């Protein structure tokens, strides 16, 4: 892979991730096109974040939500809503921030099926970073610290393989949990296998070009 030009390398590394993002964009587009009541996005945002606030601040969250009801005009509602969202995520006491962020992430409830499709393509940028670091480390004596870099490369490789293989257990978990969009959980493991096949193909093509 290191024989490829930077532009070609970027395309190769990020194509599977782009494919996954396009897939999710398509799902979001189809969902938004369904006939439904108009979305009140600022209100939804606050309704998501307010339960994440610490107990003693939740009354303020309710206050902000009630006040949003008074705001008219889309732009004004977004400005007000985003300001309140910032307050919910960054309450006055700094030590409360990690707790708010943790509960906000947990409330998102990321589905296993979604992760089974999203994580495998993330392995490629990590693998690319490991390959580039290894090439630079072996050809330049002054590349950072001689002990630190092999450790970093190892972490990148481990992370990369873990991401690429994650489609299998996550897809299975999504099927067992009977999540919505079960077909995503089914294609997750296939995605993992495809990523390895894709790597082989890229390696083969790069060798042929050289």
């Amino acid at each position, binding site marked *: 892979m290191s024989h490829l030009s930077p532009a070609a390398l970027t395309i190769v590394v990020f194509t599977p991730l782009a494919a996954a993002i396009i897939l999710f964009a398509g799902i979001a587009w189809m969902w938004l096109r369904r006939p439904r009541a108009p979305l009140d996005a600022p209100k939804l945002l606050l309704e998501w974040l307010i339960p994440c606030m610490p107990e003693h601040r939740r009354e*303020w969250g309710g206050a*902000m939500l009630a006040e949003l*009801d*008074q705001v008219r005009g889309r732009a004004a509602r977004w400005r*007000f809503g985003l*300001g*309140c969202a*910032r*307050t919910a995520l960054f309450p006055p006491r700094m030590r409360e921030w990690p707790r708010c962020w943790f509960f906000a992430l947990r409330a998102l409830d990321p589905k296993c099926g979604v992760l089974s499709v999203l994580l495998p393509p993330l392995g490629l940028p990590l693998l690319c970073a490991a390959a580039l670091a290894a090439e630079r480390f072996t050809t330049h004596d002054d590349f950072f610290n001689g002990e630190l870099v092999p450790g970093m490369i190892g972490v990148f490789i481990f992370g990369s393989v873990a991401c690429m293989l994650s489609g299998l257990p996550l897809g299975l978990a999504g099927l067992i949990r009977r999540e919505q969009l079960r077909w995503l959980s089914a294609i997750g493991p296939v995605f993992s296998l495809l990523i390895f096949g894709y790597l082989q193909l890229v390696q083969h093509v790069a060798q042929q070009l050289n």
Partner: protein
Amino acid sequence: MRRRRPSSQTVKVLLALMTEPTRWRYGYDLSQETNLKAGTMYPILMRLADRGLLETAWESDAPPGRPPRHMYRLTGQGRALAIELNNQAPATKALRLRPKLEGSL
């Protein structure tokens, strides 16, 4: 506990509340009046309430079809601080507070 001098935005909120100290005020109206964004104003209100400078209450007679609003006004301590800050402000920026209220703490 050592208290830092309030920020200019906090002073703005205190002085806005002090223009009519006995009247309950709403969050959005205060935000419009002080020209402060919600993300700046609400943390200020929270801190003022934590320090006993602001009292809060929910509307008891909300019209049907909308949730009750949260209301705010300064406590006695809050009014004293607002007057002190107003007296420290340059003459051009100080509010003309109603005379009968200046001593009523």
